[in-house]
């Protein structure tokens, strides 16, 4: 693949040009206490070209917001509904490879038949510009171990890999190559020196980390060979704060409710999570998962086993947000380690 190069200065110009072509430019910016968050910076110009670490919340929130209207209720009395079309054209800039992989997995899930149109119309009108990681974003992250970083393999339209003189640019799709074509003057061919520098990033990760054997891990979980004491321990530590399911870039479970204003209203979906006790409870009162530890267990099983069985890959991308958030110090890396070790 032909690799390109862009200087920081030209990247600034590229962003200016891209902003003209979108309704929302979703990019990293600095919040209070220097936290990085994603926000629409089309008019504010607060976007960061490059940043250290990763954002507190993944860009998932723009594709699967906390609440989202599925359709409009035109009349409660007459039971009339009307579809809503989201025509917003979004450009996501500076998305980390782990989050790019998370979006790829979530997209596959929602576009898998029967198609979720509400998600599809958003994702199809979106453009993704990834920003590869020159170094590990935190000592807790394990993207390389989960095969989700530090450089994205696919799922992006353009990917920028930071090197000392600027950024190496990889084109990942037709949308990406159209951007390059339109802004041709801003790009150069990359030099072998730059390419070596990018390669060294991967080398560095490879030296210090090992890929997790996720197939083996999934098999142990599927065969119910995880020691009960591990689930007990996790159950004991989980205080149902729901930080993990809120911050996980691949979590997508939702519930549905109606919000009315007189005879009109909307049907909303809102983010829900398997860690809540009521998540599987039915109207008649029967609860298939009555124990507290079974709820957080579903979180682990879904990421590391269910999605491996359904899609062939785990839906944990090693971003470590759940580890950072957990007040009970539940650490998915330690869980994976203990499960594999326990089965040997």
């Amino acid at each position, binding site marked *: 693949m032909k690799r390109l190069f862009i200087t920081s200065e030209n990247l600034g110009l590229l962003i200016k040009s891209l902003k003209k072509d979108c309704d929302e430019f979703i990019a990293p910016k600095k919040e209070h206490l220097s936290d990085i968050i994603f926000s629409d910076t089309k008019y504010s110009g607060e976007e960061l070209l490059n940043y250290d670490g990763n954002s507190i919340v993944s860009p998932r929130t723009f594709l699967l917001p906390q609440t989202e209207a*599925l*359709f409009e*209720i035109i*009349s*409660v009395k*007459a*039971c*009339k*509904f009307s*579809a809503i079309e989201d025509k917003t054209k979004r450009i996501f800039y500076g998305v980390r490879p782990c989050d790019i992989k998370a979006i790829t997995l979530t997209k596959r*899930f*929602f576009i*898998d038949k*029967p*198609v*979720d*149109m*509400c998600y*599809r*119309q958003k994702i199809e009108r979106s453009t993704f510009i990834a920003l590869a990681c020159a170094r590990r974003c935190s000592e807790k992250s394990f993207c390389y171990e989960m095969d989700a970083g530090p450089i994205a393999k696919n799922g992006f339209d353009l990917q920028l890999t930071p090197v000392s003189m600027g950024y190496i640019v990889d084109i990942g799709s037709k949308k990406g190559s159209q951007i390059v074509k339109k802004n041709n003057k801003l790009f150069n061919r990359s030099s072998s020196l730059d390419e070596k520098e990018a390669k060294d990033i991967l080398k560095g990760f490879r030296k210090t980390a090992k890929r997790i054997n996720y197939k083996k891990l999934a098999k142990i979980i*599927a065969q*119910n060979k995880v020691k009960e004491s591990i689930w007990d321990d996790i159950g004991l530590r989980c205080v149902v704060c729901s930080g993990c399911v809120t911050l996980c870039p691949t979590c*997508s*479970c*939702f*519930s*549905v*409710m*109606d919000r*009315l204003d007189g005879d009109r*209203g909307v*049907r909303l*979906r809102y983010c*829900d999570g*398997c860690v809540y006790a009521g*998540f*599987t*409870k*039915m*109207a*008649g*009162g*029967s609860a*298939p998962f009555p124990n507290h530890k079974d709820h957080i267990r579903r979180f682990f099983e*879904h990421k590391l*086993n*269910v999605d491996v*069985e*359904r899609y062939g890959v785990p839906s944990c991308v090693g971003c470590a947000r759940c580890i950072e958030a957990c007040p009970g110090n539940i650490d998915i890396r330690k869980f994976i380690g203990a499960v594999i070790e326990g089965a040997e």
Partner: protein
Amino acid sequence: MKNEYLPKIAVIENIINETSDVKTFTLQLKDKAIGKLKYMPGQFMMLSLPGYGEAPFTFATMPAANGRFQISVKRSGVLTNALHILKEKDAVGIRGPYGNSFPLDRMKNKDILFIAGGIGMAPLRSLAQYVFKNREDYGKIEIIYGCRMSKDIIYKNEIESWRYNPCTEIYLTVDAPDDTWGGTCGVVCAVFPRIKINPKTSIAILCGPPIMIKSAIKDILKLGFRDSNIYASLERYMKCGIGKCGHCYIGDKYVCLDGPNFSYLEMKKLGLDS
């Protein structure tokens, strides 16, 4: 682009009070131009009541030429309460059908045992109607229907009429009989010694509360039914019906997409042993 969440509008044509807390609603799509809901016995649909949300219900009648179908609803939550207040000519939202049907092909030329508990008779009634309509395609049929009390029995007259079908046995049983009850007493399992069909070659279809399914499977296994010949209709909390909301999955299966009807062989793989 079709929004799968957007319900079609159906009109309540008739309401039958089955018991003190179960009503049967006859529904018909309002706009006949949309066509009929093409469903098979065992599948379900999502019913919408604006302001109350949505809930899954199984079809309680076999697919009819005129497009009418029934659902039987037990009052047990916010939405079902609101549904019970509705009157004829009121409108509701409908989408579906969703999920798999009963194993109609596998059932052909075999003897069939139906085991229903309480409101679990609803999906089995759809199947029974289908089987009796195509009576020559199936072997002997035995239907066991258990309820807590005799006043909880739904479709009483229709079930009595099933007795007139050839090679068909109906067993009704109640847990807590009152003075008017002259039939069998006890849970569905109490009837098992009277089953005449050959367990080794017959198919059993179960629908009812989880506790009934669990104990009934345990007992019919003892009779000699094979794992792969036992099917249960599973009930799970679900919000979308299309495998997206994440509430209903068990193991790697989504009850709304891969179910709700699973063989005991599949159930065991999902960790649902009896």
